[in-house]
C-alpha cells in the first residue's frame, strides 16, 4: 500500500491529505502483524485444518465462471449453469435431478426477483 500510495499527498498535520489515512491504516496493519509474529499463538500450536480446500477451490472456480458469464449469457442461463455445475461437479449428484433442480430454482428466482419484485435482471443472449 505504501508503494502504490506514492502519488497520494500525505499533507501536513494542519492540512491532512488524501494519503494520510491509507498510510496510517497500512502502518497499523504492519504493526499488529508484527505483534502477532512476535507473540506466541495458540492457533500456531494447534495446527490448521485445510481438508476442505478442494471443496472451496471448486466452488470458487465455478462461481467465478458463472460471474464472468453473467452478463454475456444472462441471468437464466448463467445461474442455471452455476447451480447445475455445483450439484454435479462438487456434490456429485445425479445429472437429471441436478438439471431439474437448477432449472426449477432459477425459474423460481426469475419469477420472484424479475416479475414479483421488478428487479432488473440481465437478459444476455435470451430475449426475455
Amino acid at each position, binding site marked *: *500500500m505504501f508503494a*502504490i500510495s506514492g502519488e*497520494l*499527498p500525505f499533507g*501536513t*498535520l*494542519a*492540512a*491532512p*491529505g*488524501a494519503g*494520510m*489515512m*491509507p498510510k496510517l*491504516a*497500512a502502518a*497499523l*496493519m504492519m504493526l*499488529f*502483524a508484527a*505483534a*502477532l509474529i512476535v*507473540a*506466541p*499463538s495458540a*492457533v500456531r500450536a494447534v495446527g*490448521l*485444518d*485445510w481438508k*476442505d480446500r478442494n*471443496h*472451496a477451490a471448486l*466452488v*470458487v472456480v465455478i*462461481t*467465478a465462471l*458463472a*460471474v464472468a458469464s*453473467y*452478463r454475456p449469457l444472462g*441471468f437464466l442461463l448463467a*445461474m442455471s449453469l*452455476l*447451480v447445475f455445475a*455445483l*450439484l454435479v461437479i462438487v*456434490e456429485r*449428484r445425479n445429472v437429471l435431478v441436478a438439471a431439474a*433442480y*437448477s432449472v426449477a*430454482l*432459477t425459474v423460481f*428466482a426469475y419469477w420472484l*426477483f424479475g416479475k414479483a*419484485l*421488478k*428487479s*432488473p*435482471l440481465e437478459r444476455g443472449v435470451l430475449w426475455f
Partner: protein
Amino acid sequence: MLWYAFVGCLVGTLVGMLPGIGPLAGISILLPLTYGLDATKAIVMLAGIYYGSQYGGSTTSILLRIPGEAASVMTCIDGNAMAKKGRAGAALCIAAVGSFVAGTLGVLLLTVVAPPLAQFALGFGPPEYTALLVLGLIFLAYMSTSSLVRTLLMAAFGLLLGTIGIDVMSGHFRYSFNIAELGDGIGIVPVAVGLFGLGEILSTPSLQVTSEVTRPKLRELWPNRTEWRESGWPIARGSLLGFVIGIIPGSAHIISSFMSYALEKKVSRHPEQFGKGAVAGVAGPESANNAASTGAFVPMLALGIPTGPVTAVLMAALLIHGVPPGPTLVNDHPEVFWGFVASMYVGNLMLLALNLPLVGVFVNLLRIPYAYLYPMIIMFCVIGVYEVNNSIVDVWIMLIMGIVGYGLKKLSFDPAPLVLGLVIAPLLEMSLRQSLIMSDGAWLIFLQRPVALVLILVSLVLLALSAVGYFARRKGWRARLVEVDGET
C-alpha cells in the same frame, strides 16, 4: 406499515434459520428492493429481518444443532440437548418467549434512552466523534473472543479497504486501478455477503453437515412449571445484559449470548447441568441476543454510529432514502424514528405468533439437504449483490471477499471487525481530518475537549486491561510448561 413489519419478520425468521446466510446477507439482498418504498416502510421491513433472524436462528440451533446464525451458537449446546431429551418444543417455546420479553424490554428502553442520548450527542464535534469511533473499535477488540491484536489487525484492514475510492475532501482517486466502479469505494454489502455468506459456504463441505431433524410433538410444545420457573430469571438477566452490550459497537448480539451463557453458568445452583439440557442455557442467551439486537439501534438512531455490520447496512438504507441517522433524526424525521419504534412493539408480537405455530413448517424447509441448499444461497448472494449497483464488479468483490473470509476462518481471524472498520472508515477519516484542520495540526485537541478526553482515557484503560490479561495468561502458560517439564 404492519404488512412491511410482517414481511420483514417472516423473511428474517427464514433467513435466521438458514445456515450460511445470516441477517446481514438477508438485509443486503432485500435492500435494493426497498428503493421504491418510503424511508419508514423500508427501515421497518429491514429491521424486522434483523430481529426476526434472532428468532429464526434458535429454531435450527435447537432442532438441528446447526446455528442458523452466529448469535445462536450458544443455544445449540443446551437447546439441542433438550431436544434429544424430548423437550424440543419446550426449548423452542422458551427461546421464543424469552426473545419476546427481551425484545419488548429492549424497545421500552430504546424509547426512553434514545431521545435524551440524541440530545446529548448534539454537542459532539469532530474530536468527540473521532474519539468515540476509536473507542468503539478498541471496545470491540476488548470484548471479542479473538485476541486483541488479531481483532485490531482486522479492524485496520477494514479501515484500509474503506479508503478505496474518491477522497471526498480532495477529489483524489485512491486505489481504483482505473476501474470506474471503484471510484465509489468498496461497498459494505459485497464485503459482508462475501465474508459471512460465501466464506462460510466455502469452509462447509456438505459432508460435514450431518443433521438429524427432530420433529416435536404438539403435546411437547409447552414447557412445564419447573421449566418456566427455571427460565424466569435468566430471561430477565439476559434481557438487561443484552441491551446494555447491544449499545456498544461490535458484534454485540454474538458477544451478549456468550456472556449471558457464562453468567447463567456462574450463578446457577447446578452448573453441571449446562451442556446437558439446562433451561437457563437456552433462555439466557436467546434473550440476550434479542435484547442486544434492539440495543444496537440506540447508537445507530441517536448518534449515527453503526454498532456492527447489520446496523451499518441499515444506516446505509436510511441514507439511500435521504434520512441521515444521528442526533437530528428524532427532530427532523420523527415519523421515521417513532414509526420504527412502534413497529418493533408490533414486530415482537408477530414474531411470537410466527415462531410457535409455524415450527412444523419451518422444520420441513430445513429438510432440504445442505448439498442443494448452498447452491441456492450462492445464487441469491449473486443476485442480491448485483442488485445493489447493477455492477458486476461488486459480485467480483463478493467472490474475492469470500475467499478472504475462508482464509480468515482457517487462520482464526474474526471477520466482523473488518466490516466494522470498513463501515466507520469514512466517518473516522472525515472527523480525524476535520479535527486536525480545526486545531491547525495540534493533536492535543483530543485531550482538550472533555468528552473526547474521557473517551480516549476509557480506550487506554481497555488497552491496559487487555495487556494485563495477556501477560497474566502468558505467565500461567509458562508456569504450566515448567510443571510439565519438571514431571517429565
